[in-house]
């Protein structure tokens, strides 16, 4: 187990460096230096050259990349020349809000998807199962922004129940937590989309487990159906959820770009979107690398967690 974890961490490191190299190369190909973004299009070539020298952008790309890697090894993602702040501080400021949005919707999704999947499995091939499957497939096939637009139309513009966007006054994580009415639509949108996906997995897993001998044994022992389902089926059928939650970790911090854009919610996704518009070099680079790192780490955590949950699984 320890050896496996170390091997996976080494692979994760290599993958992260690879992601960093590709992202770095693409950004440098598109724009070798952020000088013109910082100094403007009217900047004199001499001024640009001086700026590049001052900030190290006059060095060969390989040397620049090596410097960047050394920075990264200290978890230093560089400096946003547009916002005059370190990327670390910007990420720290926005990560909490994104984590709250993604985390709240993830928890809500699990609370709905797990019982829903079990219910569908138990009532398989019934009208209720088919109806819920149809609804799930509909939501699953729907882009998140499209569902968001529909919810805004109904809940905000037609019925005036909820605000269409998160207020500009919600600028802190605590602000987001204490204004549930502002957060309702973005969380609901993400939840509906995630429930659609999770409940399909949960239904399949529960169906597999319902056909297992241990369920038949439990029933043969005379356990109530409630006990069979919640004491035996639930734990075993929920194993795939661990993998899904692990794979959700990147979005927990890397943000939900479209949802944050649609609902005007200031998180990492919106920070990235704005950086695209202003060519804020180091934010783009850091966001992409962070996303890659979290994907690798999320996979690793899922693998480890599933072995902890199911002693029959051994990693090698």
């Amino acid at each position, binding site marked *: 187990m320890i050896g496996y974890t170390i091997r996976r961490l080494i692979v994760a490191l290599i993958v992260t460096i690879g992601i960093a190299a590709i992202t770095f190369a693409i950004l440098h190909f598109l724009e070798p230096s952020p000088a013109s*973004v910082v*100094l403007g299009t009217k900047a004199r070539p001499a001024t640009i050259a001086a700026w590049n020298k001052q900030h190290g952008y006059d060095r060969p790309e390989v040397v620049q990349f090596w410097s960047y890697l050394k920075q990264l090894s200290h978890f230093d993602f560089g400096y946003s020349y547009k916002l005059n702040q370190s990327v670390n501080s910007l990420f720290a400021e926005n990560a909490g809000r994104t984590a709250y949005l993604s985390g709240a919707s993830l928890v809500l999704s699990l609370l709905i998807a797990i019982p829903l999947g079990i219910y569908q499995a138990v009532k398989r091939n019934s009208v209720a199962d088919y109806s819920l499957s149809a609804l799930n497939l509909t939501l699953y096939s729907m882009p998140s922004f499209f569902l968001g637009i529909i919810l805004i139309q109904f809940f905000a513009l037609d019925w005036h129940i909820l605000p269409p966007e998160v207020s500009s006054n919600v600028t802190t994580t605590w602000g987001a937590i204490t204004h549930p009415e502002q957060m309702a639509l973005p969380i609901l949108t993400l939840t509906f989309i995630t429930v659609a996906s999770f409940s399909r997995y949960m239904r399949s897993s529960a169906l597999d487990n319902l056909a297992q001998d241990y369920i038949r044994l439990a029933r043969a022992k005379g356990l109530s159906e409630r006990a069979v389902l919640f004491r035996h089926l639930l734990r075993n059928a929920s194993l795939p959820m661990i993998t899904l939650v692990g794979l959700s970790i990147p979005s927990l911090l890397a943000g939900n770009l479209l949802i944050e854009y649609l609902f005007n919610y*200031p998180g990492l996704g919106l920070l990235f979107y704005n950086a695209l518009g202003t060519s804020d070099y180091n934010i783009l680079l850091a966001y992409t690398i962070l996303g890659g790192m979290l994907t690798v780490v999320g996979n690793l955590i899922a693998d480890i967690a599933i072995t902890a949950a199911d002693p029959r699984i051994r990693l090698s």
Partner: protein
Amino acid sequence: MTRGNPFVRAFAICALLIVAALALAACGSSSSKSTSNSSKGNSANVAASSLGTTIFGTVPPAGTPVSGGTLTQGQLTGQTPTEVFPLANSSTVTTGTISLNSEMYMPLFSGPTGAEPKVYYPMSAASGPPVPSNGDKTYTIHLKPGLKWSNGQPLQAKDFLFAIAILKAAVTESPANWAQYVPGEFPVSVVSDSAPNATTIVLHLNKAYNPGFFLNNQLQDTTTVFPYPSQAWNVDATGGPHLSNWNDPAVAKKIYDYLNKQGTTVSTFATNPLWQVVSGPFKLKSFSATNSSYVMTPNPNYGGTPKARFAQLDVNTYTSYTAELNEVKTGALDVMVGFDPTQIAEMPQLKTQGIDVLGGPSWGWFGGIYNFKDTTDDFDKVIAQNYARQAMAYLTDQQAYIKGIYKGAAVAAYGPVPSAPKSDYSPKSATIPPYPYDPAKAVAVLKANGWKVVPNGQSTCVKPGTGAGECGAGIPAGTPFKFVWANQPESVSSVGALESEALASEAKAAAGIDITLQTKTFNFLVSNYSNTNPANVKYVNDWGVNNYGGLFTDYYPTADGSWNHPGTGLNTGSFENPVSDALIQKSVYGTNPMAVINEVAWFAAHPPVAFMPMQDYMIAVNTKKVGGAAQGWLSMTQQQWEPNFWYAVK
């Protein structure tokens, strides 16, 4: 589920139906609005001479004012303020920066006056136009007496001298440090200055400048010139001593570097004591580093008029026009800036909710810049001929574009200034197209100059030479009239792409001019398809026309820097002509303050650009909650927010 299971098929169909139903539900209201708009909506600009422009929609009513209250205004992500120090460089000069600066600081010469591009003295620090003397080499400016900074100190002449010293330090360090700076011109043109008394400024210039140019181009400009508080901002470090020797260029440079650094640190915009000393109608109460939303309160020491009547203005940031309009519809936002043309269909529905939409054309020009250096198929020689550019103008059906593509929210523009708004510097011909849409005339003018015109084919030069009826200098026999026309993607600039497609189609069908449309990003077009940067020589033959957008011009609309002195400023297509150079000289250095009118008229007759309609800039206002004088709404069509004109209504 089993393959072929009839239930699966039934529910798959059910799922599709649900998707379709939801989609229809979401779009239903807008489609019905679209229908009603075609019958009831405002579908065309209306000339309103009393308002000094041509408007689209409705000017929000004045209403009955109520003192106090909080008003809300929107701003778009990407257009938010990025610098609070009122000396924006070319990378921080956003619409939001310009607005924030003019709300916090009183310009020496404020503008516009409603929609009209001219100085508005009630909001200016100067009491009247600069008075020329010494053969237009010396200008005397009088400040209004009694003006104060928000900290109670008087706003005096030396505050403007201090601003000049800082501006000089900025542009000496790099011309890019001040967005509006043209090398050699103001403030470098000021060789000495003095303040004989507290309200008089005397500027001695290095040469004689045209009085119209000096006021309406140099001192009143897109990013405006402001007096700076010389007793508060004369520092070069936090907590450092106040420096009285700011006339020393080395000291001024240190002060500039410090102020610029502080002024671009978004997280301290509202907390840095430097920016609490203001002269404009508002003070910054808070500024969110997270989303650039901010809150302003009236400055009780503001010396201009009108003064704000409300207690607080919340400027909220939105990611899209849709998000902004949704907030207006729910009543959470009072004033929406940048109403999108795609939302025009909703205007009748909005009207029933008390939301007025107003649009008006900006001051400047849009169109495709010809590349006079593109040697592909001798395009440089062809487009150098004015008859070739005339033919292109004859093929441009601006009225059809305005009706079909802009949905009525644009005005015709046949030269460097549009047909509206009104300006003292517009020639009479601004509203009369020198080459009105007429494909037959396009064909005739080509034939008359030695071309064999093949409609729907490829027109070629058949009479080379420089004589009458011949193609012109350097154009060999067999030269095709063809070139590449580069646009932004339709997803980014739909009107630009659509009008280009329409023109290309017409040019091919009617006159055998082969236009190859090419799509590039805005950044690519601005950075690479520009002959002013020597590094772009590798792209010079890749484009015949660059239709990245256009330019907002100064109130005094000379093309100085744009269409003269190739290789400098904004002359991205390398246009040059000795006649226009001479006219520009008169506009900038001549004694006739109205000289620019002749220049503008010449450029309309000899277009260096394929001029296209000038799109309206639009706003939406919740008239149930906010009112104000028409002037305050009309100025927004020039992308200048003047919230001191607004108030809450009963």
